[in-house]
């Protein structure tokens, strides 16, 4: 029986793939209160378990999978999962986040987290049901795509109610940006965790649970639920997401000129309409899909009904799909984009890894830095959709030129002596947008502990915060001015800690951490999250303590990275953003200024209590967070 009155399952599963041993340990109260769950658990366990300098593919690397604290409760949009390891992309902390139904099922099966050590000799899968676990042979699943893997597992267990987190051929073949796919709906895309799992010869983790996730104070919990529903009702954003999903952002990227198209050589897309969110809705949308208990439902269920790709049924696309597989390689046929998206899901490939690497190769080809002999005879120019589809196959199986593309932009840049064209931060490719127009966005991407990432912080607060709110929260009204730099380091640091809470709780950022009103951000992301946590778990918590838990985890991740050799130099955007101005669209002429960026980075380190030379958290900072 769990020591917790609710929320937590109360147990952590330890699996050693080398000797096949399995242990169950209780989750300790102190640990839960300090790290909350999800990314808090994964990051802390990795800091303790992973030695500096190890090869990400060696048996000593550790994969930690953790459910968000609120996963499994009826808290809306709380079903998010974190899958983490030392990343083969960055060499630092690597974590991928996925929605869907897997994370709650892990709780119903009796566990808050799984720690996987060692390497199996033969392929295996991990079966977990109601507090028990076993390793089962998976030779027959090895080599299968993710959909086939799920079908075979459902047939084999005779159970269509199981939830499956699997890798595809890309993970097996150690494609550096291989992802994990949870059921039909979720993808833990970034940081190459699928490749680490592949190196361990672990094909899938399958869960089935029928245990209760208790609620400590049901009355208070119900009230929180009602409060949360009220905050959603007034949001335009909720309706937009339900109608268009994240592809609604295509209109914003186009009108602001921040696409990062053609490997960040273009800011807008000339033939934009076909790949707009509206067009994807019109042509392919069957219905919106919601993760567990989601009142928003931003995911898309799409079907291609005619043309050469008729018969594709898939969950997607996301905005990131369109950014990676349309804008970057400059392809504007939406059916091709869905086909490419479908293949990435089947092979278990991170779409951003694929789109960024192929786009970089296209630029090198057009510049004459790659020849047709090197690219398997493919005319690798922007807009060549056949080449994109051709190389998705080759990347997944590491065949021909696909073998180099499978390494990601950083290593490809080193091997081809073309670093400048590799648009990554710490080894992870820049996603989402071109940050040249907005230096705070550049800072957020660059200091992100997992490498370039738009979900590690919220640099957009200055677009809507009122001067008096800015004064109260960040000590200066200047934070409400778009152009001002003063206080922005502090604003970015604050937003990172605040967003970290969502990854600890398992809460969705779109549902909980999105609003154009600063008081609503505080209300939902901190106050209601705290209320849901306390009423579900019965543990004491205040807004201030909860915020500190976010900050603690961010510092743990920074510590991990510093120990793995990533210092201040890792916190810079790619050189192109400093050297080249945007050449088209409304942001034409924008580029980053090195002096300005340096100053902002200094301010950020100061706000964080980190050493300005090394980026290392100071002893005082660590002490204040209970991390000595």
């Amino acid at each position, binding site marked *: 029986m769990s020591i917790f009155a*609710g929320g937590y399952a109360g147990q952590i599963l330890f699996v050693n793939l080398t000797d096949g041993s399995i242990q169950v340990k209780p989750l300790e109260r102190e640990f839960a209160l300090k790290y909350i769950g999800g990314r808090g658990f994964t990051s802390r366990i990795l800091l303790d378990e992973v030695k500096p300098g190890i090869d990400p593919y060696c048996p000593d690397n550790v994969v930690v999978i953790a459910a968000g604290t609120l996963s*499994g*409760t*009826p808290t*809306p949009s709380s079903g998010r999962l974190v899958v983490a390891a030392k990343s083969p992309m960055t060499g630092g902390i690597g974590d991928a986040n996925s929605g869907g*139904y897997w994370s*709650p099922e892990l*709780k*119903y099966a009796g566990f808050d987290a799984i720690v996987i050590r060692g390497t199996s000799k033969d392929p295996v899968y991990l079966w977990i049901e109601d507090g028990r676990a076993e390793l089962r042979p998976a030779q027959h699943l090895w080599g299968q795509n993710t959909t086939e893997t799920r079908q075979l597992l459902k047939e084999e267990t005779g159970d269509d109610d199981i939830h499956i987190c699997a890798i595809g051929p890309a993970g097996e073949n150690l494609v550096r940006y291989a992802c994990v796919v949870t059921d039909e*709906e979720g993808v833990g895309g970034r940081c190459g965790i699928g490749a680490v799992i592949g190196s361990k010869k672990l094909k899938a983790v399958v869960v089935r*649970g*029928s*245990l*209760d*996730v*208790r*609620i400590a104070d*049901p009355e208070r919990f*119900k009230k929180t639920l009602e409060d949360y529903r009220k905050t959603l009702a007034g949001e335009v954003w909720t309706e937009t997401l*339900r*109608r268009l999903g994240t592809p609604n952002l295509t209109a914003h990227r186009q009108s602001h000129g921040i696409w990062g198209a053609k490997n960040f050589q273009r800011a807008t897309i000339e033939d934009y309409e076909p790949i707009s969110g509206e067009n994807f*809705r019109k042509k392919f*949308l*069957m*219905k*919106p*899909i*919601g*993760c*567990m*208990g*989601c*009142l*928003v*439902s931003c995911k898309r*269920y799409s*079907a291609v009904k005619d043309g050469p790709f008729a018969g594709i*049924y898939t969950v997607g696309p996301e905005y990131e799909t369109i950014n990676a597989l349309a804008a970057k390689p400059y392809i504007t046929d939406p059916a091709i984009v869905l086909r490419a998206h479908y293949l990435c899901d089947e092979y278990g490939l991170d779409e951003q890894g694929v789109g960024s690497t192929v786009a970089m190769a296209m630029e090198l080809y057009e510049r004459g830095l790659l020849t047709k002999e090197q690219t398997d005879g493919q005319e690798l120019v922007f807009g060549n959709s056949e080449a994109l589809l051709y190389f998705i196959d080759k990347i997944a199986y590491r065949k021909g030129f696909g073998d180099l593309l499978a390494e990601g932009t950083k290593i490809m840049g080193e091997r081809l002596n073309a670093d400048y064209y590799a648009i990554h931060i710490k080894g992870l490719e820049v996603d989402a947008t071109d940050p040249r127009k907005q230096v705070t966005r550049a800072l957020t991407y660059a200091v992100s502990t997992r490498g370039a990432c738009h979900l590690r912080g919220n640099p957009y607060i200055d677009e809507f915060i009122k001067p008096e709110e800015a004064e109260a929260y960040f000590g200066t009204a200047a934070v409400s001015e778009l152009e001002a730099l003063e206080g922005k380091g502090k604003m970015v640091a604050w937003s990172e800690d605040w967003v970290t809470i969502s990854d600890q709780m398992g809460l969705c950022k779109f549902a909980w951490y999105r609003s154009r009103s600063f008081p609503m951000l505080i209300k939902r992301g901190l106050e209601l999250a705290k209320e849901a946590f306390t009423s579900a778990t019965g543990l004491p918590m205040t807004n201030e303590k909860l915020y500190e838990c976010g900050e603690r985890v961010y510092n743990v991740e920074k510590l991990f990275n510093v120990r793995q050799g990533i210092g201040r130099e890792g916190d810079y955007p790619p050189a192109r953003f400093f050297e080249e101005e945007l050449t088209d669209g409304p942001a034409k002429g924008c580029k980053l200024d090195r002096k300005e960026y340096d100053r902002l980075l200094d301010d950020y380190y100061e706000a964080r209590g980190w050493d300005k030379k090394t980026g290392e958290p100071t002893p005082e900072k660590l002490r204040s967070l209970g991390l000595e």
Partner: protein
Amino acid sequence: MGRQRIGYFEDLQDPEHICSRCHMCELICTFHHHQVGNPKRSRIRLISLDKGVDVPVTCLNCEDAPCMNICPTGALYRPESDGMVTVKEDLCIGCAMCVNACPVGAITLDPVDGMAVKCDLCGGDPQCVDYCPANVLKLTDAERFARHRMRGFVKSLQASGEEG
């Protein structure tokens, strides 16, 4: 109103009014009845097939209810002549005869206490209806449900007329 039950009122012409697979009905049902999170204790269950087919299934409240007829202890009964078939928990022996008899699988044994569980319409204010974000679950009866189906049928005729 005739015998009440929960109906699935999708509109296949409108993507926003089709079940979005969020499982909120299951979560809120279990929370309402047991104050915990556990979809396997829910009295409404979501069935998902390939190609995006998701349908929430729950008790149809049959007139000549097989579960009620087969129950050897009289634990299943209809308190009012047109009310919902209800489980008298102290009479239920957990034999699962009702589970075998139900044509849609809407009655099951609770995985925790082993007794028969089925939809009770939350005493008249069904929580799944209240919480469904796609607004496709409604408290209904055969007449209203048939009208909904008729509307869908006529709309499809209208659509094919416009195309033709």
